[in-house]
């Protein structure tokens, strides 16, 4: 009998952990007023990988995502605890002396519902650059084209850059939002259920795009579509009631989760 010595897959106790990190949260807690929405969440975000956040509605996954660009600062009565470190530099972006604008300049976000500005296609993509003080027309045009190409939208809109962004289809609008986010060369791309308002074909386009993009940018995606998390992500974090239940390699989490709660959720036996 021919016997081969193959390494065993890690048992749940010695789960693998990403090595190169773009960011990580350490004991992150967050509250609105006196409602604790995130409890002590520590998740690593692997560089040039896609990390998916899954969990039932209201588990705090979007709240978690929105901590990264301090979106919660827009609203009164919110409080962060713990740290979010952005590498390289290990800067804690929740620190008191950090200006949220400075943080937002390094990251970009795409929202659940396509939300292009009611301006032209060109203006939409160029906006982030203009905010960053880029005024040279040539440079702007070049960047806009690049971003639209990265978002796989260039071919469809190159002849109507001055058309209203809201005249595009839903899927195109979302790719436009993606281009708008990419134009600023973000270090980390935050996606908040980016395909939940799209049809399956537009969704497939976006997913394809994400897989292409991870060569260049680290992606953190919130999704309520587990198949989507399974298809696109490298790492998955499962959250429930504001807590991290399990974090691991996507393929491991979806074939052999270590926690009963995770198993119940991904097999649809929740509650």
């Amino acid at each position, binding site marked *: 009998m021919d*016997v081969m010595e193959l390494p065993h897959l890690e048992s749940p106790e010695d789960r693998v952990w990403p090595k190169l990190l773009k960011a990580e949260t350490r004991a992150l807690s967050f509250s609105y007023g006196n409602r604790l929405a995130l409890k002590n969440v520590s998740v690593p975000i692997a560089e040039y990988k896609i990390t998916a956040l899954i969990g039932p509605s209201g588990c705090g996954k979007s709240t978690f995502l929105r901590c990264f660009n301090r979106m919660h600062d827009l609203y009164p009565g919110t409080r962060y605890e713990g740290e979010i470190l952005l590498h390289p530099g290990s800067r804690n972006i929740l620190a008191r002396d950090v200006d949220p604008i400075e943080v937002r300049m390094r990251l970009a976000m795409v929202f659940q519902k396509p939300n292009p500005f009611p301006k032209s296609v060109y203006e939409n993509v160029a906006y982030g650059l203009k905010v960053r003080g880029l005024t040279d027309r040539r440079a702007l045009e070049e960047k806009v084209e690049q971003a639209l190409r990265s978002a796989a939208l260039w071919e469809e809109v190159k002849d109507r850059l001055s058309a209203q962004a809201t005249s595009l289809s839903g899927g195109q609008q979302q790719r436009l939002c993606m281009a708008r986010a990419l134009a600023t060369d973000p270090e980390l791309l935050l996606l908040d259920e980016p395909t939940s308002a799209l049809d399956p074909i537009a969704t497939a386009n976006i997913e394809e795009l994400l897989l292409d993009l991870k060569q260049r940018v680290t992606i953190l995606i919130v999704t309520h579509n587990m198949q989507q998390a399974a298809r696109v992500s490298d790492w998955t974090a499962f959250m429930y009631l504001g807590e991290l239940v399990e974090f691991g390699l996507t393929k491991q989490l979806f074939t052999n989760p270590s926690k009963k709660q995770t198993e119940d959720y991904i097999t649809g036996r929740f*509650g």
Partner: protein
Amino acid sequence: MAQRHFDEELAELKNKLARMAGLAEDQIDKALAALVTRDSALACRVIERDHKVNALDVEIDEACIELLALHQPAAHDLRLVTTAMKISTELERISDLSENISERAIELNEEPQLKPYIDIPRIGNLARVMVKESIDAFVKEDSKLARKVLVDDDLVDDLMEQLFRELLSFMMENPHTISRAIRLSFVAKYLERMADHATNIAELVVYLVEGKIIRHTSPQVPL
């Protein structure tokens, strides 16, 4: 419980597999009986019945593909469906081997019995028990029982070796026995293959329960 219907379908899948396993075990029993009692008619019936097992194999495959396509199962469900698919193939092979044994039995019955059959029923019984236990392990999702099957396989290999030497000595003494001895050693080989298929099923059960792939790993590695 959003997945009640899916759960029912999974239970149904397990049932089908258990039914197929029962049929396969029966085939082993009858093939062995046909051999030992030199009953060619029984052997013919075993050969005829093989298509029933084949049909169940197809049915289970289709059910699994449907479950995969329509429910996109994950985690334990995914392991259950994929394992069921593979186990059904193993059972189908086991049944084929029973058919082969029956064919050899019919051929052997055309000549006088070479020797009293002692080892062959022992190996056969062992193989049948292994099949039964591996399927029990699957139905109960009992990885401990599955690991026991893995150990039993070594016993079959040993008995097989012993029988082979015995048949070899027959053939060396009297060349007229060669055709019968070779047929008997085929039967022994078939039984040994059955035990291997049972081992495969047991390994699949360990994967199903623990999520660990232990196939093609040395048994010396602590399981």
